[in-house]
């Protein structure tokens, strides 16, 4: 873990944001189990230090692109629970007016260009956001989140090449949680993922994705360097997803051992460990941590209750937003 006792405020915000992600996911899972949520969703629990460590190093108008496992990125980049739960339930007050759902949640106001249900599908988008930043001299940085499985998509190599050629301010953040769906990473990735980025001349880093301070420290440095025109960068973040591939993936012994899950959850939980460290450093007391957890839990439950009661979009919305500037595509 990092050093310094300074920055109590930053630490508490990071802790709180991780707790908020966990609480969001627990509630989302509950909504699924109680058959209140349409469709499926992919839980971010276990990976909180990645999203929070990175997003806390970004400004509000820096951009991120997210994935099918995207609630964590969305929360970490500044989204509100209410609009998020509304979106998950397909309600009109959701971030995307219920049109996107869990797999497409976007929060343009805080620079989240959206989750993506095409694995690797946002690699071009993030790189393009960085291209705008460079062409328009905005000083913005773009972070592209993706999983280890997504490194099998050819698109990544194409955009890394261009990002490297043109020195774009983009950080490729691989959340290496060891699995793509029901398959272990080593079965689907030959050689070294980090070396692949390096081969394009991209400076690359391997970092413990369960250690929010380590992630945050590194990201701060890389973001600063991106702003100076020293990008792009690659981060390979070792992490773990606690739940199944999606909420319905309950019996997973055939592809990963219960022991392995238990080990990560008990020994390497990013929230518990960071909480312990905060206590050890006497930055907070155990009671204060409990207080944070309680507040967050309450916030989440209220947001769920709100979303459950919120209205669905009106039928007339079905052909809205097909084309910008065309109120209703089918009666134009």
């Amino acid at each position, binding site marked *: 873990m990092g050093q310094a006792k300074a920055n109590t405020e930053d630490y508490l915000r990071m802790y709180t944001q991780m707790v908020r992600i966990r609480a969001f996911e627990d509630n989302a899972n509950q909504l699924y189990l109680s058959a209140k949520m*349409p*469709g*499926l969703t992919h839980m971010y629990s276990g990976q909180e230090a990645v999203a929070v460590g990175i997003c806390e190093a970004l400004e509000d108008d820096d951009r991120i692109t997210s994935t099918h496992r995207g609630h964590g990125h969305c929360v970490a980049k500044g989204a509100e629970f209410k609009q998020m739960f509304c979106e998950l339930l*397909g*309600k009109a007050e959701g971030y*995307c*007016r*219920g*049109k*996107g*759902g869990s*797999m*497409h949640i976007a929060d343009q106001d805080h620079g989240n260009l959206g989750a*993506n*249900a*095409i*694995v*690797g*599908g946002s690699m071009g988008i993030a790189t393009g956001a960085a291209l705008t930043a460079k062409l328009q001299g905005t000083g913005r940085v773009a972070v592209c989140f993706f999983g280890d*499985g*997504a490194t*099998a*998509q*050819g698109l990544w190599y194409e955009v890394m090449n261009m990002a490297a050629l043109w020195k774009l301010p983009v950080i490729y953040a691989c959340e290496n949680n060891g699995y*793509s*769906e*029901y*398959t272990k990473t080593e*079965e*689907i*990735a030959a050689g070294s993922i980090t070396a692949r980025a390096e081969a394009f001349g991209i400076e690359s880093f391997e970092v413990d994705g369960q250690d929010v301070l380590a992630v945050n420290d590194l990201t701060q440095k890389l973001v600063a360097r991106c702003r100076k025109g020293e990008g792009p960068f690659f981060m390979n973040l070792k992490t773990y997803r606690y739940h199944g591939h999606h909420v319905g993936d309950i019996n997973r012994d*055939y*592809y990963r051992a219960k022991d392995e899950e238990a080990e990560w959850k008990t020994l390497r939980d990013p929230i518990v460990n960071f909480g312990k460290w905060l206590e050890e450093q006497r930055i907070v007391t155990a009671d204060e941590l409990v207080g944070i957890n309680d507040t967050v839990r309450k916030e989440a439950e209220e947001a769920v209750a709100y979303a459950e009661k919120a209205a*669905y*979009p009106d*039928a007339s*919305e*079905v*052909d809205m937003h*097909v084309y910008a500037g065309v109120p209703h*595509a*089918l009666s134009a």
Partner: protein
Amino acid sequence: MTREITLSKAVNEGIAEEMRRDPAVFLMGEDVAEAGTPFKVLSGLVEEFGTERVIDTPISEPGFVGMAVGAAMTGSRPIVDLMFGDFIFLVMDQLCNQAAKTHYMSGGKLTVPMVLRTNLGATRRSAAQHSQSLHALVAHIPGLKVALPSSAYEAKGLLKTAIRDDNPVVIFEDKLMYQDKAQVPEEEYLIPFGEANVVRPGRDITLVATSSMVQVCTKAADALAKEGIEAEVIDPRTIVPLDEATILDSVRKTSRVIVVDEGHQSFGVTAEIAARIAEKAFYYLDAPVARMGAMDVPVPFSPALEDLTVPTPEGVAARARQLCRGEVADAA
């Protein structure tokens, strides 16, 4: 002798039978082996045929479809599993520039006997990137054959034919139908390509229905029958090749027709079939050629919206009533 089995089981049996029959047949795709795909359609195959013939791939759709083309050109008969029909956009080059054209470009010397199994169908709350029915796109490309099974019976019979065909065949299963049961023979059978099935005979109006829409139209026909309107439901089963004769015969008999398909309506399958009817059965028609496809909007996540985008039995019946009662003037 028949017994009732699910569409999922029918597909599984079809593949197993062909793999037993012909050692050149193998299967590849994401999580097809131990996991048996997310829809569990392929469960058990890896146990019988081993990981050499049931191959788990990385998330590299263009890559493994390209490999299937090359394998097919050199004596293998690959079956490729594409997890969602929406991912077909990723493999269009390998499918349409390579697989579809190789036989022609080589003057008949090379053949590409491969099957791409994928799916279609909305209303699963999977949103815009996991709900599309994109079969019209591949039907537009000469060199590909396109099959659209509408029940377990068709799924098995068409798939076995596809595997034995010396051309690239794309087969779209309806992902909402995997658990639907139908009577399927114990004995081996094949369903030839280019032979439509008259699902239900009738004299008053023809409903040409593909895939998921066969059930929808059959329900519509049931409702119409109670009102004295006898609808003939025709399932083309393959849209390339298309059994024009059976469709035209029916329309010439009934003089009225609705073409129903779950792809987007514009520039989709309903257009092609309607246009052929308008040209070739023109003098027999007593009413405008009607068609109903999915609404021309990306598929929305919210249940309140998604259900509006796909043709329903009620909608089809209502349109049929209008046509039969002469309530149709030329629309503006």
